[in-house]
């Protein structure tokens, strides 16, 4: 089984729409850093983060964000799909709170998408775990929260529910105006016109999909 890359990398560059000198970057194996002066100085933003692969679960550095993004209409609301779960901040990444639910399969994955204006809404595409990088139980679903991660709803309509070995890379889920699109490494692309509740297949024979973006 392939376990992906073994080197750290910056995968998320998140610019505050109110102030382009204020941005966050997220680095695999390190965590989230913030600058307020256009990149001259940086500070860590990993308070509240936890991991499950180091002796100290709450280290300042050593976390593994998979993707970080913010809500464009409520930029103090940041969402993070991490190796060790889903984390949410409603205070500009001053603190994070783990909001994933391993018991219902909403925990591990790579991408996370936010709403245009509601900071408490987000979508993820859960996978089995770090040693099972595929749909859980062979059935793909998208999970959505509208209450800052307190509760999650799973949506399966239109997505394959048998023999699905799909996994969605960190940049291969996007949302704009209630329309979502996701692409998988097995070349399947799906679109939802109703905020993720049901999905239509766009095609099954693409090459591995690395990125999906609405322009």
């Amino acid at each position, binding site marked *: 089984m392939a*376990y992906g*890359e073994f080197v750290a990398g910056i995968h998320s560059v998140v610019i505050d729409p109110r102030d382009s000198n204020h941005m966050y970057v997220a680095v695999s194996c390190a965590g989230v850093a913030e600058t307020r002066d256009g990149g001259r100085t940086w500070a860590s933003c990993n308070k509240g983060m936890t991991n499950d*692969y*180091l*002796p100290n679960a709450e280290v300042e550095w050593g976390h593994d964000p*998979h993707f970080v993004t913010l809500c464009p209409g409520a930029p103090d609301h940041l969402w993070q799909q991490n190796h060790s779960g889903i984390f949410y901040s409603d205070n500009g990444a001053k603190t994070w709170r783990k909001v994933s639910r391993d018991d219902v399969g909403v925990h591990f994955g790579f991408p996370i998408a936010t709403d245009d204006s509601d900071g408490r809404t987000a979508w993820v595409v859960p996978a089995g775990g*770090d040693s099972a990088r595929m749909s859980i139980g062979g059935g793909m679903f998208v999970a959505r929260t509208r209450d800052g991660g307190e509760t999650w709803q799973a949506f399966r309509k239109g997505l394959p529910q048998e023999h699905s070995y799909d996994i969605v890379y*960190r940049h291969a889920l996007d949302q704009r105006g209630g329309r979502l699109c996701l692409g998988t490494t097995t070349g399947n692309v799906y679109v939802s016109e109703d905020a993720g509740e049901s999905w239509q297949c766009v095609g099954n024979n693409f090459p591995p999909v690395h990125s999906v973006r609405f322009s």
Partner: protein
Amino acid sequence: MAHVSFTRHLVQFFPKLVEGEVPGATVRELVSELNRRHPGLGGYITDETGRLRRHVNIFVGEEPVGDRVTLSDALAPESRVFILQALSGG
């Protein structure tokens, strides 16, 4: 004797595994003793040559072991040892 903690992934395969004191002057000796107590456990931690498996990490305190090939890192009686699943890919 070092105090050893384990990833819950290993507890799936060895349900009787609990953290506790294990003798050993080096990490290698400690793993050998663990395998004596829980036959087969060593094979999840090292390969057939004794090298630490790629997706496993052993920490002594907060430092990862320096010698992943022969596990020669020395242990003190007060050492805390963590056997964890390595962060892999992503």
